Structures are given as C-alpha cells and as structure tokens.
C-alpha cells in the first residue's frame, strides 16, 4: 500500500526513514520524494500487512501519515483511448489492451502527475488533497 508522509521543516534534518526501517525492520520502497524549504513530502510503498505498524512509527516521530487511496481521478467520458498517458508514466499505470483501449492500474500510481498534463482531453485529475 502507498502512504504519503508529510513532515515539517523542524524534523527535516532527522533520518526519519532510516530510523523507521531500523525500528520496524520493514522494507520500505520510496516512490517519490519532494522537499522544499517549508515542507517535505514522501510517498512510500509498504507491504499491506505492516502498514499500521509503519504508520505508527512515523506518527511517533511527528510525521503526518495518510493513505494514498485514490491518487488520480479518471473521467471515462472524456477519455478517447489514445494512450498519450502510456509513455509518460514512470510506473506503468497505463497500458494498451489488445483492443487498443487503455487499462489503468491506479494501485501503482506515485502521484507524479505527469499524465495529468499529458492528457489532451482532461480525463485525468488529481484527487483533492
């Protein structure tokens, strides 16, 4: 499952991820990280059965933790099945099916949002954060 971590400038210097990995022993995969002077945001992938434990470890360290349930909203009525989204996605959310329609597997999404700008028909939008 994918989780979004948000942390303030105050704790940005701390090796949060390393600490949590050492504490829990869970193998965490970093999908995306964004840091600017005021806030840090990291999307991580955690095995489903360990999510509670990992989330709790981050919360104890002052991190805001949220599940990323519906990262991208897909509007089927606007989609023309061109597949412009297919080649810009870093994690292969979109794929051509045999009938040339597009299959979408949002579970893989890391919310880089490249597809949102790429879609000529505005069929992809970011879920309200």
């Amino acid at each position, binding site marked *: 499952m994918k989780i979004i971590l948000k942390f303030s400038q105050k704790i940005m210097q701390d090796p949060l991820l390393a600490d949590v990995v050492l504490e829990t022993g869970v193998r965490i995969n970093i999908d995306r990280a964004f840091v600017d002077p005021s806030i840090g945001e990291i999307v991580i992938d955690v095995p489903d059965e360990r999510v509670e434990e990992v989330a709790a470890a981050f919360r104890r360290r002052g991190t805001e933790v949220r599940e990323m349930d519906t990262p991208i909203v897909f509007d089927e009525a606007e989609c023309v099945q061109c*597949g412009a989204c*297919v080649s810009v996605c870093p994690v292969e959310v979109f794929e051509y099916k045999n009938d040339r329609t597009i299959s979408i597997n949002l579970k893989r999404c890391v919310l880089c949002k*490249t597809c949102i700008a*790429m879609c000529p028909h505005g069929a992809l939008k970011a879920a309200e954060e």
Partner: protein
Amino acid sequence: MPKSLEEINERIRDGSVYVVTADEMPAIVGELGSEDAAREVDVVTTGTFGAMCSSGVWMNFGHSDPPIKMSQVWLNDVEAYAGVAAVDAFIGATQLSETRGLEYGGAHVIEDLVARKEVHMRAVGYATDCYPRRSVEAPISIVDLNEATMLNPRNAYQRYNVATNSTDRVLYTYMGTLLPRFGNATFSGSGTLSPIYNDPDYETIGVGTRIFLCGAQGYVVGNGTQHDPANSFGTLMVCGDLKAMSTDYLRAAILHKYGTSLYVGIGIPIPVLNEGIARKTAISDADIKTTILDYGVGRRSRPELKTVSYEELKSGMIDLNGKEVRTSSMSSFFKAKEIATELAARIQKGAFELALPTARLPRQATQKPMKQLSAVPLVREVMLPSITVREAISVQEAAKIIVGRQVNHLPVISASNKLIGIVTAYDISKAVALNKGDSLKGIMTRRVVTATPDEPIDLAARRLERHNISALPVIDHTNTVIGIITSEDLSKLLACR
C-alpha cells in the same frame, strides 16, 4: 473482373453489399489472394481520429436589426475571422480565448456548439449606410446559426513523424510531453486504417468523395495544405455539416503548454473496383514506416534518428540506440476502428452510398519551406568578443575589469582555457556586501548555460528567457570560450527586425 461504382451502390441499396474495415484486409487478401478478395469485398472502410489543428467552422449568424457588418467577432472570447461578408465568420480550432488563454480555444467553442451548449457571441463593426450598427451581443447555440459548415484545410495526414527528445529537460510540444534523454516517444496516425495509405494513388479519394466526418456525411474538397504525396505525407481538405456531427467523433483538446487542438474523426470508404485496389488496401502496420525525429533541436530540419514501422510503434516500445523507449499514440486507434466500423455499418444498412471523385488529387506536389526575406542570424554573426578571467583572481580584480571594460559578465576559464564558470556584476556586488571571497572560486556559478556559434539567435534568446539570465558565453566543441551573447545585444537586434 472490375466492378463499377454503380454496381456497388446497387448492392448497397439492395442490402447485398460486403463491407470490411481496412485492418481486416491484410488477412483477407493473404487468404484469398487479391483477385478473389476484389470479387468478394465491395467496400473497405478506413478511419482516423486524432489532433487536427488545421480545422475550423464557417458560420453565418443571420442579420440583426438594425444590421451590422461584423469586423470582429468573438465566441466565448475566442476570436473568429470575420474579414468576409457582414455576418459570416470562420472559427479556427487553435485560436485561443482572450480571457482563458491555453485552457479554452476555438476547438472548445466547436465542441460546445456540437454539444448543443450556448456560447456567448460578441461582435463589433464600423457603421455604414447599409449596416448602421456598431456592436451586438447575444447568447447563441448551433440551432441559431443559419449555416455551420466545418471546413478543415488540412486533415487526415497519411502518416506522421515520431517525436522524441534528446535534451536534458522536459519538452512540451504539439506531440505531447517529451521526457528528457529519450524518456519516451509519441506518434500519431492510424497505420493500417489510414485513409490515404489505403488509396495511395488517389484512385478513389479525390474531389467530391463522400466521407464520414465527425458523425456526419462530409466530402473531400481537395488536397489539404502541405499535401506531399511523393513522400507519403498526403493530406486532405474536407468539409461537412457541423449540425449533423456528434461529440462521439469530435473533441476539443489541450496540449499542455502548447495550445488547443481539435480531435477530428474521419472515415473514408474505398470501393474495391478492381484487384489493384484490393491489393493496396491490404497494407498492414508492418508495411507503413515512419521516421523518429529529435524534437530537442528547434530547427525546421530536425535530426532523423531512425525509421520504424507502425507495428513497432503500436507494440508500446521501440529500440533507440539500444535503449528501450516507451511509445504513446496521440491519436486514438480505438476510435479510428470505431469510426471505420460505424461507417461500414451505415453502408451495410443502405444509409451511406459511395461517390466517385469529380477530379483527382495531385500525386506529385512538393512542399517548399517558407520564403524568408533574410535568414535568422546565427550566434557567430552577432556575438561579441568575451573578456575571460581565471578563477584565482580576487573579487576586487574582477570588479576592476567589470568597471574598466564596461561588461556585466565574466566567463571564468581554466589553465587550459576551458570554460569552468561565470561571474556577473551582481555576484561581485554580493560578495563585496557580504565581505566574502578572496578569489572567484567561491562565488562563481559553475553550471554555465551556453550557446554554440552555429545556432540561430532565436534559440539563444529562448534559452535566456527560459533560464531568466542575461548572457550566454559562446563555446566551441572543445568548451573554449569564443565569444559572448547578451540579452541587451539581442533585444537591439530583434527590435530592428
């Protein structure tokens, strides 16, 4: 045994016609041979659905009371061309809204009209004795227009080049987002379903050919602009009644940081009059080749990287210099097939008869580049000699040079005369103000944005703008500084054009 078009239309009327879509023909001809295929199949339908910027609609608004001669007219703040008779105007797909910019354009107005939505019309004119009124405003919908005739100067490109990007930054183009370092490739066109590729000698597609245009019956007007049949880049000019169109086959689009375009759905039926036509409609995705171009080079002639087939492109992955590059189609093959299938169904049930062209399209036209009064100057023609310095000199020495030579930028070079950094007058002031830096080493910018002598100055100007800087050292292939080009000098030059 050749068939006549009249025989085929007779079969359409009595319901015995046999119609297939063009993607089925390779297998049919492969199995039966072209002679038997020509006997069996009466009509092959083609289709395409993609961004076609050269599209638009002629409208007639009817006369107001008192009447006006519109000199300018806007629909939802998108200007339409009104330099014709009093209340006629042409709205083009890529014209942008004056209030909403890249978010809304002529294509959206056209889609809104087809969707039976109301749009706000506003027009101004100069008063004459016969047209005394100066302005008019009204909400209108498609039923209020006397005529709404789609007339697209260039549609249905036979094939299209593939776009990719060699540079280190993301490019936003009419071929979509191109990721850095060949991160992806985008293409367009329906390959085996391509109307012109199924009739490459223009035997049945010509002036007056009846076609499927965005759900309506339309016609081929003639060749499209930039028609280049000799190089398999043929195009068509088409027209049709907007009032009979459907948003199932017509969609407005926004290409990020580029502008708006219209996705147009076109289906062209090809009557199988003889064996030769049957053979040509058997063309497959593997037979249709196109070229991968590097859109990282902002010139008319972009470097050609490789030739690929539509079969490879549609596989979702191509090989480029040993690297696997993912591909995206900007046009929809699914919709193209839907259009070819819908057209086949209409013919099958007798709702669409075929028409032979009244005149043939040019088969040898060639395209010239734009006639330009003068070539865009190259960087080498306008660059100035640059004063360079070594990184070991003090901030004060650098300040002296800047004041003494009246320059704002000092490229910093190594012992072997290679560019290693740049210092500006601002960097010097800052160093003085903060009381730091004995040498330039600590204050210079090391990632220098540069220009090369053989590029047009417009590219250098765009680079200055993008990085929000005011000068580019000009370097040769050995990274040696051979001059400098500044925004000050460029703006003087551009102002004189």
